[in-house]
């Protein structure tokens, strides 16, 4: 039976440098999702944001699958990740998924971007065909829970999102943002949100992107002007605030470039917000005169100051999450029981029918009515034989020993073996997934 798993690192456990190393996007993300599915889990979703890199999955042997997933991340980090890496299984994994999606585990509790990021991660995995029923249901519920949390609590109220923190800092530098030039470099979701927040305060937005289409889309949504990436240096000279959110693996705003820019700016202050992971801005840029550079971890520091304000609402949100986790677990347990009942009926019916088919030729010519009577008798035998075991299974469903009883029944009647016989050598998790179409 598949169990949910989450293996990963987040801003709670790992520094920015490690998250940068593990973060993936684009083709690398696709490759990682498939690698996780191939090497570790039966189902897989990969959530890679600036604050976390997490492998979500379902597997029949969760301990072994978790070990394989940990080894995979160790390999990517180039060293064993001990305390930085966490593993959640079963109910804890469901709770974690719901909490992450509801922004309860975010650097800035209640920030809205994570919902879109989880949705995107789920859809990407769905497109790749790595999402099965269990993980699919878990993510669908997680998205619904997040919406419920947002509508039933005030967790999203107040100015504690990364974008509003960026606005607040900009106001502490410039006093007033009206008429200030904000340059948005890249098209990351959080960067876009920050730019939108600043432009809503009266700042002029200039969007610099390699993809003109993306730049035009942002301009359509947030206003401002799309600018060619070739004019980057000139745009930086005219900027008051620069928000970088590209997926570049190297620094986009190098120290050398920014030194020249600062000279040309004639001492005007410049606020640089680097939301990208890996970072877009050389950390030395923050040492330049009148340049104030904040990266994702710096923003976390500010966020922590505001966290206390959200604790009360977070407690209410946690209660909603707990109710939803319990409901999901009830569904999952029923999922374990249903295929077992179907499998047992199918196995017994198969045996009785087989024997019946072998016996019938020896009984001579039988009328249709006689055949129907025998058929009913066979079904009645199956029902009577299964009545007590199925009652016991149903009764124990939801109890601690229920899962063990289901596993015993499946082992005794070789329900999993019969599925596996058609796919020799395939790992157990894959065989379990193959059960799904049969059941339906």
């Amino acid at each position, binding site marked *: 039976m598949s169990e949910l798993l989450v293996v990963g690192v987040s801003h709670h456990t790992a520094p920015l440098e490690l998250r940068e190393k593990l973060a993936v996007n684009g083709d690398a993300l696709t490759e990682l999702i498939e690698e996780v599915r191939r090497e570790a889990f039966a189902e897989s979703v990969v959530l890679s944001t600036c604050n976390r890199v997490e492998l979500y999955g379902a597997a029949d042997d969760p301990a072994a699958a978790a070990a394989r997933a940990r080894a995979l991340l160790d390999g990517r980090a180039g060293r064993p990740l001990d305390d930085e890496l966490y593993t959640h299984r079963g109910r804890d994994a469901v709770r974690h998924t719901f909490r992450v999606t509801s922004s309860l585990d975010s650097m800035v509790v209640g920030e809205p971007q994570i919902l879109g990021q989880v949705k995107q991660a789920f859809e990407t995995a769905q497109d790749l065909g790595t999402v099965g029923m269990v993980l699919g249901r878990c993510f669908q519920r997680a998205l619904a829970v997040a919406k419920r949390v947002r509508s039933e609590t005030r967790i999203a109220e107040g100015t504690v999102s990364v974008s509003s923190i960026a606005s607040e*800092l900009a*106001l*502490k*530098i*410039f*006093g*007033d943002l009206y008429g200030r030039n904000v340059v948005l470099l890249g098209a990351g979701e959080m960067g876009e949100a920050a730019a939108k927040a600043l432009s809503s305060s009266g700042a002029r937005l200039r969007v610099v992107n390699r993809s003109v289409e993306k730049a035009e889309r942002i301009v359509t949504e947030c206003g401002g002007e799309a600018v060619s990436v070739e004019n980057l240096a000139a745009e930086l000279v005219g900027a008051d605030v620069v928000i970088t959110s590209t997926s570049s693996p190297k620094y986009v705003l190098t120290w050398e470039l920014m030194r020249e820019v600062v000279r040309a700016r*004639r*001492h*005007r*202050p410049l606020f640089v917000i680097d939301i990208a992971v890996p970072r877009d801005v050389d950390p030395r840029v*923050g040492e330049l*005169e*009148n340049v*104030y550079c*904040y990266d994702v971890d*710096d923003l976390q*520091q*500010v966020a922590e*100051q505001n966290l206390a304000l959200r604790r009360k609402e977070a407690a209410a949100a946690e209660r909603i999450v707990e109710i939803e986790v319990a409901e999901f677990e009830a569904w999952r347990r029923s999922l374990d029981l249903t295929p077992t009942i179907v499998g047992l009926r199918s196995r017994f019916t198969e045996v009785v029918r087989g024997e019946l088919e072998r016996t019938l030729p020896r009984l001579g010519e039988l009328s249709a009515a006689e055949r129907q009577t025998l058929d009913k008798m066979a079904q009645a035998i199956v029902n009577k034989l299964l009545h007590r075991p199925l009652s016991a299974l149903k009764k124990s469903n939801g109890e601690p020993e229920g899962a063990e009883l289901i596993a015993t029944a499946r082992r005794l009647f070789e329900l999993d073996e019969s599925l596996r016989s058609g796919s020799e050598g395939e790992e157990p998790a894959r065989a379990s997934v193959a059960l799904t179409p049969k059941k339906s």
Partner: protein
Amino acid sequence: MGGALFIATAIAYAVATALFTGALTRGTAGLKRAARWVLIAAVALHGIYLGLDSLDDGTPPMGRVHETLTGLSLGVTLAFLLASARREGMAVLGAFITPVALFFFLGSGLGRSVEHVSDEVRSMLAPIHIGANVLGLVAFALAFGAAVAYVIQERQLRKKTLSGLFQRLPALDVLDRFGLRAVSVGFPLLTVGIVTGAFWAFRIHPGAPVVSTAQAFALIAWLLFAGVLLLRLAAGWRGRRAAIGTIVGFLCTAVVLVGYVFRSTGGAS
């Protein structure tokens, strides 16, 4: 009576300083309101003290060094109260400006030992020289308060320690522009003060070849402010360097005043 009033005024300034510091570090709105009212009370006491002192002496309140200092202290306080009334966010600068007012006021107490200005030294230039210097120093005191706040705020922003102090201090650009305006007002006044002072000194002691320590510091302060203004206007200088220039310039002018107070003989030089 005068002594009691002096002590009461000094205590009022000291309490206002403590309350403004508390308002800045703790962020309590009540402390800020209390600080403002105590400072207004200090101004009232100060005005009465100055008025009674002038009546006792029978001379204008700017005739002697201690009167100049006490006038300067009152001017700084009044200018700050006016500026902070127009911009609520600037009220926290009281934590930096009120100590300056207190410093000048206490200095005026020490300056009472300084002898009368002789008739020989009195001149038509005296009111212009003293008035320009006092008003210039009032402007520089405000610029000094803004510059200190700027340096603290900039340091917090750079070190990323965004505490409550960061939240309560005004924005960097607001402080920078306030400082620039104050220096722009103070500099021409200081220039008039220095030119008239030099002319006056030359008239009294035409043969004196040596520039006194006070004059040297006055010149250094003038050069510093001239440099800050020039670099701001011509080279677009702003920010931390401009703030530090303003702080050093103001401290030089303060040294000039201290020099006056501790001189063994009276008169301007």
